[in-house]
């Protein structure tokens, strides 16, 4: 009983800010896992890492000019997505991703300095916060989720094809460049929703972790996608509970829990391989 009470203290589900956190967190987890599935398929962790991080500069800029944080995040994540898509050549995407990220963060550090005092708001954006999510934020995030669901449903087949067999897809009229740009814009969408909740430092954990783990459990694309969403939602729920219990930032728990799921995935794949190699079919 003591443990249950420690894990689920009063207010976890009933206080109004926690209700906002549950709603926003769940929406962000679904959204991130959805886009993360394609991130993992394409081996695009760096872009998934860079776009939310770059969007931080937008938030810092918003703090400086007194604008809306979410709008700042959206503008900078979209700009960095376009920057990565348009600068990259096929050979050196890593370089251009790094440099676009640096350009954004350079501006971010300037905005922070010019903005004067290091606002707690900025720390919240770096590390994530669950206390400050307003009802308006929740609606905005749900709106972004809706957009992402629509876009993913529409793009599912060509994006899948272009991700697993780009040469064939290109030959059949699915432009690799166009898909890359659309994919990065999806990442920007996920980043805009995730940064206010999970923080700019660790938003990509929620994209890469669940999808990477799901790749070990699921065998078909749709299975993997569904498992990724499930793992993502479980991860954020665990993280919200722990963050509420301990008062520590939610980003840390998201990183830890998704890494544990990924470890389980690798373990599962390893056990499966052992079983197959000593099983009867092997002979």
């Amino acid at each position, binding site marked *: 009983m003591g443990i249950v009470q420690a894990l689920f203290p009063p207010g976890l589900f009933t206080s109004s800010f926690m209700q906002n956190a549950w709603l926003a967190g769940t929406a962000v987890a679904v959204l991130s896992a959805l886009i993360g599935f394609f991130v993992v398929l394409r081996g695009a962790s760096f872009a998934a890492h860079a776009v939310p991080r770059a969007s931080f500069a937008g938030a810092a800029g918003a703090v400086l000019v007194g604008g809306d944080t979410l709008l700042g995040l959206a503008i900078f994540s979209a700009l960095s997505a376009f920057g990565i898509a348009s600068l990259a050549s096929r050979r050196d995407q890593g370089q251009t991703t790094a440099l676009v990220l640096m350009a954004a963060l350079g501006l971010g550090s300037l905005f922070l300095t010019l903005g004067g005092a290091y606002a707690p708001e900025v720390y919240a954006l770096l590390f994530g916060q669950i206390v400050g999510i307003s009802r308006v934020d929740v609606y905005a995030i749900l709106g972004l989720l809706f957009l992402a669901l629509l876009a993913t449903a529409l793009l599912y087949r060509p994006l899948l094809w272009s991700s*697993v067999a780009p040469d064939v897809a290109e030959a059949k009229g699915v432009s690799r460049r166009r898909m890359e740009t659309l994919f990065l814009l999806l990442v920007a969408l996920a980043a805009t929703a995730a940064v206010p909740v999970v923080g700019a430092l660790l938003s990509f954990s929620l994209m890469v972790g669940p999808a990477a783990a799901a790749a070990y459990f699921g065998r078909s*694309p749709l*299975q993997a996608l569904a498992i990724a969403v499930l793992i993502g939602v479980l991860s954020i729920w665990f993280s919200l509970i722990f963050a509420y219990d301990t008062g520590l930032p939610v980003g840390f728990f998201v990183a830890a829990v998704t890494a544990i799921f990924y470890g389980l995935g690798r373990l599962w794949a390893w056990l499966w391989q052992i079983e197959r190699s000593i099983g009867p079919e092997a002979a």
Partner: protein
Amino acid sequence: MRNLDVAHLREESVLDLRGVHVHLGGRAVLRGIDLSLRPGEFVGVIGPNGAGKTTLLKIILGLLRPDEGTVQIAGRDVRAARSLVGYVPQSFAPDPDLPLRARDLVALGLDGARWGFSLGGAQRRAKVDEALAWVDARRYADQSVGRLSGGELQRLLVAQALISDPRIVLLDEPLANLDLRSQDDVVKLVGRVAHERGVTVVLVTHDMNPLLSVMDRILYLARGGAALGTVDEVVRGDVLTQLYGHHVDVVRVHGRILVVGGPDAESLTCSTCDA
């Protein structure tokens, strides 16, 4: 130019190139190519590096516009005829943990370019099963592609190209990463399936020898020019000497063909023997 095949123009043709010129960065890669391929024939495309093999494929796929000339597939412009062309890429090496089964890969060939999720259900599944059966891949239909061998993957890519019922299938160096036995398997499989289904095959390769038993005609590219005809018509000292622009010998040993000679003799021999 040098189109040795005029007699067949009367028949319906699947692929028609007329006076195709391509310049890339100031260099003429293809110079005045004319050719016409019949339904169901198996054409091997051979030539040294830089002869324009990849460029030719890109033109047929509509990924590159020729500077001059026209390209038509079944009488239509290539861009309007994309659904009539199947394509098998040079290499496909999925990670072991890619969440994609053999049947998922093949299904992408059916409707991968369409928007939205597929709503085909049982009908779509039956179609995929059928395509898997064409290439004898039913056995591993539900296995992850990351755990299949190079030969097994090659079969899936052929099924992926064929499932949309194309009139013509282009294969870009499909034998490059396979051992001799798998090479032979893939060539025979492609030959058989294409023949059964009346699909024209254009197979690009460095080495013509694995194709000798199944190839109807050979398209020999060199210095931007082309010679099209049966192996006996094209792979001859006089024809290739004209094509290369310098003296070339054709040697037949133990049922294999070697092309030797010229200032860049090394690249010639290596382009056609199995190094």
